[in-house]
């Protein structure tokens, strides 16, 4: 790999270029890029650090204060993460609001206002003109002074496409030039990072900046993607940034991942305005190890983030999310049947989306399509803009569409969806509107929604996974909301026209709320794609603010998960993890085969024997040759080549660093020096060079299993302890080694997948 700066072949310090490219002397204990951390060692290092601080705290007042600061640093980090994540989310929301409207027109009095903000103080009282005000002008009005007519329409259409293309092109160029890691959703990679993988730069400052800036651009360009997944990535970047300010977290990869789990919770919390849902999402979807302490701190971070966002108040009404609904009309028991139908639809759509999207991403990965990322983004944006503009439901931003679909028709709604035939003598309060026959506008809206649904289903498959920040919560919810609303209107009209049927007899007042069907549909589709369970229901009911709808939401979520699981066990994020070959050992996978450790361990029959180090009979030169010729991450240390009794395990990186260190610093260490791992140096003849003691880098307690241990137990050990490798012994003698990669390959083989797709160590 190109990033392997400490090249094994360059051991003698030759090539001064290396010194510059090397980071300022990495200490023993840091990890290389694209490698897995050693959870047990990180935990024991943290325990040591904590014990040292506790013992020193009794010495003086200053040390005591330092120990208090150390204990409180966790909470300070959470507070900072919440503040920054909330601020960034507010900035993103405000900027998206403005830039989305920029495609259609501009506010002349103050160019930074979106359409709604511009007309905030308008005095138009007539109902038809409520969206118009003299300060806001469409582009056609501004350029050619016409607001109606074919030429105005075409000009607006053309400018809409131009703006969308320029936003998308700018976004993909920024990603390509400054931070290539800012593309995609981020959640699959964050899941892998939280399970112990290292991807350097993925949570860096440039990635944070570029992801925030380009997220606004791509959401404003009208592409069929959302900002929730990228917001989780942004929040984790904030978490990484703040944890690097405190040595408690910057030096310990295990503790840092606790902070990142909490940051992910804060990210979802600001995306949906759902702090509890955010914590549960972090627990269920993103995190790997989630101790109870992290639960409380995640909640704190999520609350601070939600509070910060609320203070910035991006939507002008003290709500956190654009589609917060507040109605409380009850639902009927028999409505569970259409809800379950919506659940089935959600499951089916989830399966379809995952299969098609993975196939398309695989094609992008392996064929020439992947060589033209910028062109791909431009083409998809152009297609999206061209098809989206004529249909009023796709022309506006997806969040606004969902908001309109979720909202029930009040007394005075202007949208076509609410064009019911009203009884003018009616004097009911707004919440209690009975079923009404649909007017012409509703029928128009239905077929427009159907077209929009088909379009969104198809275009999202090609959009998710492009080289721009893209999330898929909002498009899934949009698909579900559209389907749900159509079903809701259908049920409502059925109930109205046939209210003499038995089931509809009591449904007159209050009637069916199509908005609720939209919500249930959104939950079903989101559950079908991501396979979230509890966190989905909690997020949805935090969005609605009412506990009445928990049962329909749960029915739909459970149904969609069952239907989707019948076709494939993986959600979209796990599918992307498999596509990329990340070494992610999923806790949800069950291993039920009857293989033994001896079937999986290396070396197999016919392979070269295990490369081991002896405890005191190898020279420095032998070890260097061994390191150069192989690329294993570590070597077991045995007593001698004859009796292969295990002493411990030595990591490759630490061996390299220790030898390099010794050659530069210690006198007398040459290629012929004996390297020993015991406490006392071995017996040496008189004029042999100074031996090199490397006991401090030896792990004296490597995990071992016997060769007859069932693989079920071995997989469990790997999962629960976060091991990277495990040694196999028989009657105390070393037989072989099982690494995490071997385990993953074995599991893939057992599940009839391609074992060669596991790429990283």
């Amino acid at each position, binding site marked *: 790999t190109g990033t392997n700066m400490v090249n094994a072949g360059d051991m003698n310090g030759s090539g001064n270029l290396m010194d510059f490219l090397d980071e300022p002397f990495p200490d023993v204990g840091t990890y290389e890029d694209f490698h897995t951390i050693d959870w047990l060692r990180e935990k024991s290092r943290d325990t040591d650090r904590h014990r040292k601080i506790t013992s020193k705290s009794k010495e003086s007042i200053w040390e005591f204060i330092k120990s208090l600061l150390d204990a409180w640093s966790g909470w300070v980090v959470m507070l900072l993460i919440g503040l920054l994540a909330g601020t960034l989310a507010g900035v993103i929301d405000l900027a998206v609001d403005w830039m989305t409207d920029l495609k259609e027109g501009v506010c002349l009095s103050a160019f930074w206002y979106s359409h709604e903000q511009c007309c905030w103080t308008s005095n138009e009282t007539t109902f038809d003109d409520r969206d118009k005000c003299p300060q806001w002008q469409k582009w056609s009005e501004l350029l050619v002074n016409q607001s109606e007519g074919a030429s105005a329409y075409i000009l607006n259409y053309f400018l809409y496409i131009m703006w969308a293309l320029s936003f998308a092109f700018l976004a993909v160029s920024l990603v390509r030039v400054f931070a290539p890691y800012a593309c995609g959703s981020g959640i699959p*990679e964050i899941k892998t990072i939280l399970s112990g993988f290292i991807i350097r730069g993925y949570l860096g400052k440039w990635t*944070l900046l570029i992801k925030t800036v380009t997220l606004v651009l791509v959401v404003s360009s009208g592409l069929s993607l959302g900002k929730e997944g990228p917001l989780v990535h942004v929040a984790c970047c904030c978490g990484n*940034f703040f944890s690097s300010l405190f040595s408690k977290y910057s030096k310990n990869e295990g503790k840092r991942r606790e902070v990142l789990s909490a940051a992910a919770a804060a990210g979802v919390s600001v995306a949906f305005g759902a702090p509890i849902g955010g914590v549960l999402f972090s627990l269920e979807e993103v995190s790997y190890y989630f101790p109870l302490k992290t639960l409380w701190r995640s909640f704190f971070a999520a609350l601070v983030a939600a509070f910060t966002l609320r203070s910035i*108040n991006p939507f002008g009404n003290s709500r956190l999310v654009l589609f917060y609904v507040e109605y409380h009309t009850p639902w009927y028991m028999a409505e569970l049947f259409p809800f379950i139908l919506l659940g089935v639809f959600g499951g089916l759509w989830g399966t379809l989306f995952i299969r098609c999207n993975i196939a398309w991403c695989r094609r992008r990965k392996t064929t020439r399509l992947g060589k033209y990322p910028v062109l791909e983004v431009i083409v998809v944006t152009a297609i999206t803009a061209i098809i989206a503009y004529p249909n009023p439901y796709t022309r506006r931003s997806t969040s606004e569409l969902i908001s309109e679909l979720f909202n029930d028709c009040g007394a005075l709604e202007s949208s076509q969806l609410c064009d019911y035939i009203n009884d003018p003598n009616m004097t009911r309060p707004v919440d209690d509107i009975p079923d009404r026959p649909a007017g012409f506008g509703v029928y128009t809206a239905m077929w427009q929604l159907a077209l929009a649904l088909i379009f969104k289903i198809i275009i999202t498959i090609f959009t998710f996974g492009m080289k721009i920040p893209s999330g898929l919560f909002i498009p899934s919810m949009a698909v579900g909301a559209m389907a749900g609303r159509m079903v809701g209107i259908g049920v409502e009209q059925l109930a109205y026209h046939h209210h003499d049927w038995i089931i509809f007899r009591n449904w007159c007042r209050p009637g069916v709320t199509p908005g609720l069907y939209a919500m249930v549909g959104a939950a079903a589709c989101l559950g079908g794609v991501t396979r979230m369970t509890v966190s989905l229901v909690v997020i949805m009911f935090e969005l609605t603010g009412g506990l009445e709808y928990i049962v329909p939401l749960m029915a739909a979520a459970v149904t969609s998960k069952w239907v989707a699981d019948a076709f494939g066990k993986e959600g979209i994020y796990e599918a992307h993890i498999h596509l990329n070959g990340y070494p992610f050992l999923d806790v949800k996978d069950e291993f039920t085969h009857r293989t033994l450790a001896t079937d999986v361990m290396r070396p197999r029959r016919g392979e070269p024997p295990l490369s081991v180090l002896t405890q005191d009979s190898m020279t420095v030169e032998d070890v260097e040759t061994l390191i150069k010729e192989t690329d294993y991450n570590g070597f077991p240390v045995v007593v001698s080549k004859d009796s292969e009794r295990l002493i411990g395990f030595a990591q490759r990186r630490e061996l390299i660093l220790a030898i390099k260190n010794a050659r530069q610093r210690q006198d007398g260490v040459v290629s012929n020096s004996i390297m020993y791992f015991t406490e006392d140096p071995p017996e040496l003849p008189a004029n042999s060079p100074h031996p090199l003691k490397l006991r401090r880098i030896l792990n004296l307690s490597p995990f071992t299993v016997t060769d007859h241990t069932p693989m079920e137990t071995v997989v469990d050990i790997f999962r629960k302890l976060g091991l990277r490798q495990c040694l196999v012994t028989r009657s105390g003698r070393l037989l072989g080694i099982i690494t995490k990669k071997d385990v993953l390959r074995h599991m893939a083989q057992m599940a009839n997948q391609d074992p060669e797709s596991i790429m990283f160590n």
Partner: protein
Amino acid sequence: MAGGAGLCGLLGSALALAGFVGLVTGAKNFEDVRCKCICPPYKDHPGNIYNKNVSQKDCDCLHVVEPMPVPGPDVEAYCLRCECKYEERSSVTIKVTIIIYLSILGLLLLYMVYLTLVEPILKRRLFGHSQLIQSDEDIGDHQPFANAHDVLARSRSRANVLNKVEYAQQRWKLQVQEQRKSVFDRHVVLS
């Protein structure tokens, strides 16, 4: 540039936090609060929307709907069907946020243009074609930061502040180049 990016990040986040604190506690514009009453059609009066800049306690039909379109005895029935909502916004927040965002976007755009177009031309003019040392991997590499290796090799002899900055910037460029190779060329990560 990694250190510079760190500084930028710190500066940006400090700016954001300061901005947030300032915005939240900033003075409220008179026009930033309003009460919006939506009154549906009543008898032969069409539907209307009324906006008025009043405080929350005055946000009801009687204070906002002016002039009242219905005569005295009908006022109560009319007002019962009206829905009044209090809305608040902060125009200062919006203005500052959009302007900060546009300036950051503009700066990034300028820097991107500089890196991709201006810098190679400048380097070629300063150092001449003959001195460009291309490492094996970069032959034919037309992407940004293609000359990071040789600049690193040349700059190691002088060690003052300016060169430290340039050295950090070149190291950042190398990192980004590696990332770009993983993501765009080899499709190893994030495909």
